[in-house]
């Protein structure tokens, strides 16, 4: 037996022994996800046990080095772990912006002290992070951001506001883009800093969305004092970190299309709602044709995500600018999925409140997907990046 097969056998045995039965049921929605953090209230004992057991092995962040709370697994071992978790339908033990975004950025740009301080606490689900990027006048043109961090001797004085800060009202800390040089060209006056959401001068205000939910906030900073040691990387070169982190965010958002509604595809969902004919074909031929094309695209897209990860691993690099391909295609595909599911649902997709529909889970989810092609860089910005960086087409 080769080493990878031995790892698979051991992993399977460990998961069988340690993953609680309640954690082997697909997540139904955001409320089933474990986000961690100082104020986190576990939804069940099983959720707590599962996160702690996985964190103790470093498997909440299996690819990170062991020295920072990770599992130290190779690319191939991480794939085996994911396959074995999928085999028993095990939920992810912990999700967070720390895992998806800040962690990779700190691993690439952070000081040793910063890595030692922050990464293990992300891995153990102790600190929940939010992302201070967009501002009211800096959306697609993110580099024009105006939140200022003035040099005040031993600290920065941070003043300004952010918008679309996901879960800012629930987060413990923020990784934030600030302007530290107003005279430099816009990309060369930005710095990347970390601070605590409980510090004086920080306030948040949830934004009510068309889904009736408030996953995003406005976030305000009024003379927040941030120690200089909380600067990541080089002063005024935060844009490099910002872009690197965005490639991870975009890869993550692009791959986020499969989770809800038990992981079933629109065609499969429609078959259970509408029924099939004798040959097994969905009884609505127009919906079926569109769902079949979406199924082909979804399967081809899943292969593309796998291929990019494998190429990146065998080349020793990240996915890089190709994350824009995943972000663009994955989010447009997810919007198509929800349009198809709404068509399949008919009037049962029109209820907004009530236990029967889990408070309109489907229509609220449908509305939520409309943000997918905006957040983390719009589809149009993604196409610009593909055109300029991957195809080398000239600027206007």
């Amino acid at each position, binding site marked *: 037996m080769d080493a990878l097969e031995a790892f698979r056998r051991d992993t399977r045995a460990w998961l069988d022994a340690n993953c609680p039965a309640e954690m082997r049921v697909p997540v139904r929605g955001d409320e089933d996800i474990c986000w961690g953090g100082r104020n986190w209230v576990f939804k069940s004992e099983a959720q707590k046990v599962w996160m702690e057991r996985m964190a103790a092995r470093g498997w909440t962040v299996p690819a990170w080095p062991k020295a920072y709370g990770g599992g130290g697994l190779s690319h191939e071992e991480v794939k085996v772990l994911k396959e074995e978790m999928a085999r028993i339908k095990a939920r992810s033990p912990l999700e967070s912006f720390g895992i998806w975004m800040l962690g990779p950025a700190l691993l690439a740009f952070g000081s040793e002290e910063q890595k030692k301080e922050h990464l293990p606490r992300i891995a153990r689900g102790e600190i929940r992070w939010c992302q201070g990027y967009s501002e009211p006048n800096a959306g697609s043109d993110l580099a024009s951001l105006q939140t200022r961090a003035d040099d005040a001797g031993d600290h920065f004085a941070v003043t300004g506001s952010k918008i679309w800060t996901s879960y800012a009202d629930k987060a413990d800390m923020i990784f934030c883009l600030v302007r530290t040089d107003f005279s430099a060209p816009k990309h060369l006056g930005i710095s990347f800093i970390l601070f605590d959401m409980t510090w004086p001068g920080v306030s948040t205000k949830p934004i009510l969305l068309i889904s009736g939910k408030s996953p995003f906030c406005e976030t305000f900073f009024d003379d927040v004092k941030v120690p200089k040691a909380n600067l990541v990387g080089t002063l005024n070169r935060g844009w490099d970190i910002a872009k690197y982190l965005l490639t991870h965010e975009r890869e993550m958002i692009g791959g986020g299309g499969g989770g809800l509604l038990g992981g079933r595809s629109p065609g499969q969902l429609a078959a259970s709602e509408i029924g099939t004919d004798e040959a097994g074909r969905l009884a609505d031929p127009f919906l079926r044709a569109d769902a079949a094309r979406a199924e082909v695209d979804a399967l*081809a897209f899943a292969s593309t995500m796998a291929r990019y990860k494998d190429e990146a691993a065998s080349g020793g690099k990240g996915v890089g600018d190709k994350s824009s391909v995943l972000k663009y295609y994955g989010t447009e595909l997810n919007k198509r999925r929800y349009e198809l599911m709404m068509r399949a649902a008919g009037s049962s997709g029109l209820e907004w409140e009530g236990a029967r529909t889990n408070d309109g889970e489907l229509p609220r989810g449908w509305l939520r997907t409309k943000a997918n092609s905006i957040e983390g860089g719009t589809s149009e910005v993604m*196409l610009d990046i593909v055109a300029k960086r991957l195809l080398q087409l000239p600027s206007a």
Partner: protein
Amino acid sequence: MLVLNDDQTMLQDAAKGFVQEKAPVAALRKIRDGKVADGFDRDLWRQMAEMGWTGVLVPEDQGGLGFGFVGAGVICEEMGRTLTASPFLSTAMMAATALSRAGTPAQKQRWLPAIVAGEAVIATAIDEGRRHDPAGTAMTAERSGNGFKLSGRKTYVVDGHAADAILVAARTGGTAGEKGGISLFLVDPRAGGLASERLSTLDSRSAAELAFDGVQVTSDDVVGEVDDGLALLEIVLGAGRAGLAAELSGNAQESFARTVDYLKERKQFGRTIGAFQALQHRAAHLFCEVELARSAVLSALQALDADADKASLAVSVAKSKASSVARLAAQEAVQMHGGIGMTDAIDIGLFMKRMQVASSLYGDADFHADRVALARGF
């Protein structure tokens, strides 16, 4: 791992170098303008045999290279970029798959060395109507003495006019539409009662319409099991479909690359047209689609190598996606080239013509999307 291994990358490099030197698009123009009846260059085919390509799917213990479907697909992709015409798909992929998996010892001995040597071309005759429908096979194979008599018609038999043998699907039982009752036979194209008409096709290659009027074959000519040929035919078609998908991926990549080059050269309104965002976004979207096609093709080829009996979903995803992406790539290529894209002077139209043939053959994008939906429960 959804990446090529070192051996496969070396084969890709060798294939790219070979077709670009020996069989560029200009070679297809020579076949077209010279009205070459075979629809391919026999000298080139012998050179491909010398490269070992003819044995890419023939196991090593039967005289081949045993390189597998990923290797075969890599070659198809490179031939797709240069529009290289050859019997690779019909003979080295489909016939080699049928014979190496299900041939009798005598059949293997007669045909596999000849395939590997580049001395035999073997076509596969399946469809009878204008649309792809293997289970719709109606041609009859009535028992007659020690063998069978074949009667019926076959349409669009790729390389059928140039073949040394033809693998024919016919009914030994059941009726058109039923899955059981289909058998496969190796037929001599010169057999009595078999009339062949060469079709001149828009991709400048050739195919045949075959009329069988009581063509006598013996039981030694049966490939695989009598009445149970559809499962083998599915694997043979899997090879053909995956090969076409790989070729279409290469076709799309090349017409797209030529279009991006043109966007960087052509000037209008005082600037390079590639600077216009209206065109940039269309090109960027097309790039994403081409990327998906490439991934689907590699997944399908790997699935065939892992277990050809279980690869039909992956193959249908690849054939459907590559067919629709190559179509989009050809349409966008002509549109973005503007008027010159409509002329025979440049090659873009040749990519569109081959795309139309390759995307239709053995099931178009819709046929395979239907199969994907059925496999996925709807």
